[in-house]
């Protein structure tokens, strides 16, 4: 019986205890922003400041992606003149920032959240609706 348990541990992830969802914040319009309210379920796992810092950085990155700056205007005008065919060959500014966000979430998971038994899911995998935080069972207590 003990043998199969250790095999299970190697092959399978720890069981999911709960999932917390951070919803979108629409007070500034349809821009992609997430609520920074600290969920009560995470109080025992992570520092409030740390978590809010992560969410604030994510919000800033999304603001950068959707910013109506000179770069996006030039991109837009050029695209319009070429009947938008440039979108087929070129990576847009938004996509570049999304890659940055994916890397940032990966880093945060590796350095901060995984050691605490948490996992942040990239919002793009949830249609930019929520930031899903998966809380894993605390195995260290059962052993």
């Amino acid at each position, binding site marked *: 019986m003990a043998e199969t348990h250790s*095999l299970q541990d190697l092959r399978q992830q720890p069981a999911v205890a709960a999932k917390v969802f951070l919803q979108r914040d629409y007070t*500034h319009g*349809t821009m992609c922003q997430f609520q920074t309210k600290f969920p009560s379920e995470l109080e025992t796992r992570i520092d409030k400041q740390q978590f809010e810092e992560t969410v604030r950085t994510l919000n800033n990155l999304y603001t950068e992606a*959707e910013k*109506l700056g000179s770069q996006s205007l030039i*991109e*837009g005008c050029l695209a*319009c003149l070429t009947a*938008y065919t440039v979108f087929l060959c070129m990576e847009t500014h938004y996509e570049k920032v999304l890659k940055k966000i994916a890397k940032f979430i990966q880093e945060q998971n590796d350095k901060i959240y995984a050691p605490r038994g948490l996992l942040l899911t990239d919002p*793009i995998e949830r249609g930019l609706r929520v930031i899903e935080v998966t809380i894993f069972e605390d195995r260290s207590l059962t052993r």
Partner: protein
Amino acid sequence: MKNCEYQQIDPQREEPRRPRRKWEVFPGKNRFYCDGRIIVARQGGVLPLTLGLILVTCGLFFVFDCPFLVKHLTSCIPFIGGGLFVFVVITLLQTSFTDPGILPRATPDEAAEIEKQIDTTGNSSYRPPPRTKEVVINQQVVKLKYCFTCKMFRPPRTSHCSLCDNCVERFDHHCPWVGNCVGKRNYRFFYTFIVSLSFLTAFIFGCVTTHLSLRAQGGKGLVFALQESPVELVICFFSVWSILGLSGFHTYLVASNLTTNEDIKGSWSGKGGEDVTNPYSHKNIFINCCAVLCGPMPPSLIDRRGFLPSDESVQTASVDIELPTQATKSEINVVGGSSQLAFGLQESPSPIPAPLNSHQTRSSA
């Protein structure tokens, strides 16, 4: 004994299954081509008719009017016509084949979380009243409605298209001429299409009337000249006014950052006598135009060509164990239900271990 338990943990089959892409299990009423690269609404609408009308009119123009006008006027005519024609066709195809801004449906966990937050009294005899949530956007109160199909609160400016069975962001309208919804991601293509089409129809109409008047002056009479190109004239005459009108209307919408949906419903027209203004407008026509037409291109949220994760079944199995009461009912309604339903049944709680074990000993043998 050890074998059975090991197989219970690892429910993947021996034979390698072809990894499936997400478009193959997409729940909305859309059709996909080129392995998920192209997306259209289920009903093609009259897109073939639109393409046909454009091709026929331009074809007749190049065949009958261009030679005459090149000889009597200028040789730029076919180039201008050709350029406009290419522009129109490209933008039309982009409007039809691009994801308009479809929102993927909520995952079962998200839906369960939202259900928990909404305080229902537990009576399931009739459908409860539509659930709404209010948010304040730029000092305006906006009501967010709950979508029963997609199981989430719709973001502002999002609407559920019943023809495509999807929630679409910044929903403008479902255009049968184009065979697709017009939403956040393809509105600029649509606008460019109708503006360039109005230029094209006006140009062809102008060329045809010039051709006819030149021929009529030539001495043979207007009636004889008319007989030579009736089809083009008829098509152009009727389409010029409607397309110019549509372009004008959409230019007004772009300048005030409104959608057709909002304009028709009168969401921001202040009918009630209260001070209601459009909270999404930048209060400046130029900025509104830039925001709508030249803003950053948002990505497609449905990830059509992504692969379905093979370990999705393991994760849903653990979810089933946590929510036994909802296991059978909610699985049926869920996105990509087939694979999850199969595992939902396999991973049913312990009361039925015997048939499960016998099935697996047979498969292992």
